[in-house]
């Protein structure tokens, strides 16, 4: 059944809120932004048709206040809510509340979220869908004793994981029985703190696995497409740092097998809209179901670039009740895309977060470069939220060309006032193992454990000293432009006056 959507409330902030607003603009839909006190000057507010304040900066008092957001949706006459990622995006209660209020939640139905959102329930569904998964406990562990028994059955090393978890919170690797008890308690309490549920399960630890995920898009008429895979093995503290599509190790056959398995799982749970099934893939190309993310992912742009599709616009059309406009055999991958997550953090100092005022922003451009940027020069990166500033994506014919294109773009990029991880990406993209696609989920930690390579000195020391002296002496004022041709400087003067008028 078709529903019309004319106004969309975006229950999120930062680059993803702007991403959704742009999609709505292009579809001719009105947009409603919500913001916390820390975000009045945020870009997602500036680009929306309407904007309403939620409250204090703390997420629990603003972006997690589903009740407030629903009120605003009703008062502003929005007929749909897009949750983005994080915050309320995987909150089944919120999805239900929307439905109850007659507001379209642009995402899966609460029922499917409940089944596939909980790791333990999802593993049961995976078994039912005859999907290979890592051996281990299906249900949450009730005691250290049970943990020891299960671990003994499947053999060490094993991994403890939070049932409600994500992003590495509540995870512990255990290589011997004597360490299990302590790890179990630690993981469970961390899970309790992070997700409000201490439920923890246990599975066999796969050695040097790759993290590869399948993007799905399902309509409410039983149609479900797999839109190729993403390679997300470059991680730090279980957080993705670089994502690519396609994966260098996934061929036609493996892609089809993983994709069809993912579709089976989604259909078995009555899944609708965008979703991602995450797998571990070992060196023998065995793939194991890891978990399903029942939302749009941060890294969706790499899939958009290799498929030529717009996932957010597809999400909205599916939410309107439209059937998918294409068949699986029409999904074609072309070229290679790489995404770097630009964070406000200091790689030279233990990756400490680096919030604060952005004093300068020089963005890259040109062929094959897409940027989903949530900040600007003059913006103060708040302390309260995820430190991601921007997603820089490079697309080219081959993986090597995409890597070199990304290096070119990173060289053009300059963010002043705060520390960022741009330098880290230059190091990774120049690393022989990464360029040879010899990566697994432990790759980055190993790289960082090693000493940083000394780039050959392309800039003489004297030049560095002179540049530093000139930049500090010339200061931040643009000095009289001696070389300007006469008319140009006349115009310059005119321009300056104009800038100062009236």
């Amino acid at each position, binding site marked *: 059944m078709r529903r019309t959507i004319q106004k969309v409330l975006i229950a999120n902030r930062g680059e993803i809120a702007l991403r959704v607003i742009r999609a709505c603009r292009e579809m001719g839909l009105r947009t409603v932004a919500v913001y916390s006190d820390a975000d009045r000057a945020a870009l997602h507010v500036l680009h929306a048709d309407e904007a309403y304040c939620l409250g204090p900066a703390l997420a629990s008092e603003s972006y997690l206040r589903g009740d407030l957001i629903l009120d605003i949706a009703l008062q502003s006459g929005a007929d749909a809510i897009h949750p983005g990622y994080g915050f309320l995006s995987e909150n089944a209660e919120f999805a239900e509340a929307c439905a109850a209020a007659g507001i379209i939640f642009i995402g899966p139905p609460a029922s499917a979220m409940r089944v596939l959102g909980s790791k333990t329930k999802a593993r049961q569904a995976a078994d039912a869908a005859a999907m290979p998964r890592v051996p281990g406990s299906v249900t949450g562990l009730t005691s250290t004793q049970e943990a020891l028994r299960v671990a003994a059955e499947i053999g060490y090393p094993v991994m403890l994981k939070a049932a409600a978890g994500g992003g590495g919170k509540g995870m512990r690797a255990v290589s011997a029985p004597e360490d299990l008890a302590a790890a179990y308690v630690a993981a469970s309490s961390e899970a309790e703190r992070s997700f409000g549920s201490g439920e923890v399960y246990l599975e066999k630890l796969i050695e040097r696995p790759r993290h590869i995920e399948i993007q799905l898009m399902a309509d409410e008429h039983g149609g479900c497409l797999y839109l190729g895979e993403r390679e997300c093995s470059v991680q730090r503290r279980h957080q993705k740092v670089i994502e690519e599509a396609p994966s260098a190790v996934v061929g036609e056959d493996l892609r089809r097998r993983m994709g069809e398995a993912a579709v089976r799982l989604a259909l078995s749970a009555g899944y609708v809209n965008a979703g991602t099934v995450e797998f571990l893939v070992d060196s023998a190309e065995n793939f194991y179901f890891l978990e399903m993310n029942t939302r749009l992912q941060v890294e969706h742009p790499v899939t958009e670039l290799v498929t030529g599709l717009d996932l957010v616009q597809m999400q909205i059309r599916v939410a309107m009740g439209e059937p998918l406009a294409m068949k699986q055999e029409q999904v074609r991958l072309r070229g290679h895309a790489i995404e770097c997550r630009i964070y406000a953090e200091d790689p030279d100092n233990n990756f400490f977060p680096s*919030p604060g005022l952005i004093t*300068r922003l020089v963005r890259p451009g040109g062929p094959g470069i897409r940027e989903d940027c949530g900040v600007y020069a003059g913006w103060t990166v708040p*302390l309260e*939220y995820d430190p991601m500033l921007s997603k820089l994506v490079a697309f080219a014919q081959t993986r090597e060309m995409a890597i070199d294109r990304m290096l070119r773009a990173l060289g053009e990029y300059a963010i002043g*006032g705060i520390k960022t991880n741009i330098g880290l990406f230059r190091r990774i993209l120049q690393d022989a193992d990464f360029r040879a696609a010899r990566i697994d989920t432990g790759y980055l930690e190993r790289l960082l454990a090693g000493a940083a390579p000394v780039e050959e000195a392309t*800039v003489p020391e004297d*030049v560095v000293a002179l540049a530093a002296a*000139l930049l500090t002496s*010339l200061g931040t004022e643009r000095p009289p432009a001696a*070389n300007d041709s006469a008319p140009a400087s006349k115009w310059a003067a005119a321009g300056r006056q104009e800038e100062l008028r009236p």
Partner: protein
Amino acid sequence: MTVWLEVEGKKRRVELPSSVLDGAMECIVDGKLIAANARMLQPGIMSLVIEGRQYRCVLDGDSVLIDGRRFAFEVNDPRSLQGRRSAGRGAAGPRAVKAPMPGRVVRVLTVVGDEVAEQQGVIVIEAMKMQNELKSPKAGKVVRVAVAVGDTVGAGDVLVVVE
């Protein structure tokens, strides 16, 4: 006009034309004459040409990016006995553990009187959804713990002092 710098840990002395305009100029770096052509495009963004080689220079706080590579530097006042960077250096004397960024204290791993090893974790603060363990800069005895769990701290605040 003379500028004293410490670049990547090395002390440098740069002499610039008395009135620095952009365009062609002669400069002296540690006694060596360099004919340069500098042009400021925007505040802190400069094109520097020396013997045909062009360098894209971007000022970024306490470092300069040249052709995408970062070089740390600081301007030294020659009359001061030491550069800012070296202030409070050396293993001798009390050393403070300072907050590298604003955040909230989530765990205090030490109490006054503890003997701590160098690089031993003493406090954990959370910012931007990440927990960060701060380590002792030296081996010694904890003589002060300035904060408690739940406190909000600002960048540079002293958290713990090790003697």
